[in-house]
């Protein structure tokens, strides 16, 4: 994996175009040791040239894959470890990661779908505005903070493992789901502290229970009703299909719902009546 270039300084990535092979409307790109800029140029060129599937092999930390890409009917496969800010501002494509994802995935994402068959890092889905993010395993701190929704743009995120502090902090819209199933932290709580702190829109569903101290004072803790489960089940079914999991097993535990008491918790802070 060591790459050297004259005069002998070890380079993490080389600023060279990656090897690209085409097979009909499928394009394969070898990202091994290629700097993110040249890699993402190759991805965009493939999509502009009409590729339906872009398969990226040997990814190791290259940033911004799928970032700002606006396209429909395009599928990007990431084999390896997806770098920071993957799918940021993404508008339409589907990205499937066979490995873990680093920090900041789905930042302000607009539409499309991200499926991670591994763990994901901190600030996942920050300010997400639409589309779906599915993660098989554990996620980090500040996941789903400030997700928002408008009319038919409703972001949905489902995380199959456990989450740390600030899950859904300042959430303004959309749906955030945490299952606690595929985790390497069996002894630890489902979710950390400050869950939904400052939340004023949208909904959080947790498979299992949560203590009041773990949640922000702006949210109410409810048992999910049949109506709630009717809303949630099709999403979980889609998630289960993407992950190769059993929907019955997911539904075998009761869900807790977190919802904000007020849509304008600070409405009177600066303009007291």
């Amino acid at each position, binding site marked *: *994996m*060591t790459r050297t270039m004259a*005069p*002998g*300084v*070890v*380079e*993490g*990535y080389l600023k060279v175009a990656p090897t690209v092979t085409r097979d009909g409307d499928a394009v394969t790109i070898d990202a091994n040791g290629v700097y993110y800029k040249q890699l993402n140029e190759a991805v965009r060129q493939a999509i502009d040239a009409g590729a339906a599937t872009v398969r990226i092999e040997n990814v*190791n*930390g*290259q*940033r911004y894959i799928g970032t700002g890409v606006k396209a429909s009917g395009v599928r990007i496969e990431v084999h*390896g*470890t997806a*770098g*920071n800010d993957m799918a940021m501002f993404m508008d339409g494509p589907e990205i499937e990661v066979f490995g*873990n994802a*680093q*920090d900041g995935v789905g930042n302000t994402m607009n539409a499309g779908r991200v499926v991670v068959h591994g*763990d994901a*890092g*901190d600030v996942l889905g920050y300010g997400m505005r639409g589309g779906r993010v599915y993660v098989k395993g*554990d996620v*980090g*701190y500040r996941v789903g903070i400030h997700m928002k929704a408008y009319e038919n743009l409703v972001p949905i995120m489902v995380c199959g493992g456990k989450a*740390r*502090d*600030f899950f859904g902090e300042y959430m303004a819209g959309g749906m955030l789901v945490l299952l606690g199933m595929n985790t*390497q*932290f069996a002894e*630890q709580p489902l979710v950390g*502290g400050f869950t939904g702190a400052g939340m004023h829109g949208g909904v959080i569903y947790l498979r299992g229970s949560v203590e009041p*101290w773990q949640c922000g004072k702006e949210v109410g803790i409810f048992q999910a009703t049949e109506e709630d489960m009717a809303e949630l089940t099709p999403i979980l079914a889609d998630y289960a299909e993407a992950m190769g999991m059993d929907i019955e097993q997911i539904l075998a535990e009761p869900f807790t719902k977190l919802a904000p008491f007020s849509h304008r918790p600070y409405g009177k802070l600066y303009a007291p009546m």
Partner: protein
Amino acid sequence: MPYDLERYDTFDVRRYREESPFKIHGGCGLMGMCDESGALRSGEDAILAMAVQHDRGNGLGGGFAGYGIYPEFPDHFAFHMMYHDVAAKEEAEALFDQYFTVDLAEPMPTRPVKGITDAPLLWRYFLKPYENKLEQAELSAEDYVVHVVMTINSSVDGAFVASSGKNMGAFKGVGYPEEIGHFFRLEEYAGHTWVGHNRFPTNTPGWWGGAHPFTLLDWSIVHNGEISSYGINNRYLEQFGYKCALGTDTEVAAYLFDLMLRRHKLPLSLACKALASPLWDDIDRMPEDEAAVMRSLRAVYGPGMLNGPFAIVLGFNGGMVALNDRIKLRPLVAARSGDTVMVASEESAIRAVIPEPEHVWAPKAGEPVIARVKDMEWPIHGDLHLDASAISCAVTGTDQSCDTVEVNA
């Protein structure tokens, strides 16, 4: 690059003359690697882990520390020095002659690297304290060395100690870490433990002495974040004879670990809780005896608490410890593969060195990741993870021996 230095009249160009005083915003990158079997890894592995994180820095600071790199001088204090000029070198060397037997003095082996310019004079020395001076001073050899380090850094104009431990050394400067590593020929060194850093200076100048790691004796610290409590930490450390003279906030973390682990002999778990204190609400939910210890700890070491975002790696002879601030405001990923424990700001840095680790995880905020080299003396008192009663026992020092507390006197 021409600077209008008059606009920065509070900036001490005399001390930090190599670099710009401009404030630039960004992040940093770090790595730590320890082979718990004691097997040695080339410095090139540490360089590769930092090269992958190139974009986390901006070329204004890179550095490494390696442990086990001087097996031919295991009992000497190895001083890595930076000098602005020959006068600074002569003044520091006169001080060395006064305090130490100098068994070897030589220029640091370097090679020219494009992008590395304005290097200070770089020398290394293998030193032993004069026995009679030690006796007169009534100090431990370590305190004697700390005194010399503080004297040079604060009083010898243009001379700075990059490292001062045994069988270890720091290699740092202004440049990207992969350039700095190549400049210092790190592939020629082998160590059981390495730490590395890529700097993106924010509040303090980018200059050779201000690059990470920051060291004292065997301790080395690399840090991503900002220590907002630098002022109060600095004043607290002054009471114990430490002088912060390098102009970078991270310096206080190196001295705080020296104070708590070496001088106060705090168990590691307690020292980490002092730096990344649990929130008061969390303490209120702890079992009463544990809560009492945490309240005492926050009261006693309040001025030592590191406020602000941080991910740090502490390297030493015997292992390494990685720690996040209590609400994880900076990234840190850990992995284990066989006997090797590795941490970094990004998982990709780990996988560049170890493509398929057995276990990769994101450490919890405020909870240390610890690697310990087998059969090496563990320089830290107390067990790795103590329960509350063991902590109480260690702190209150009851007559009965504490079951879980090992003391390596």
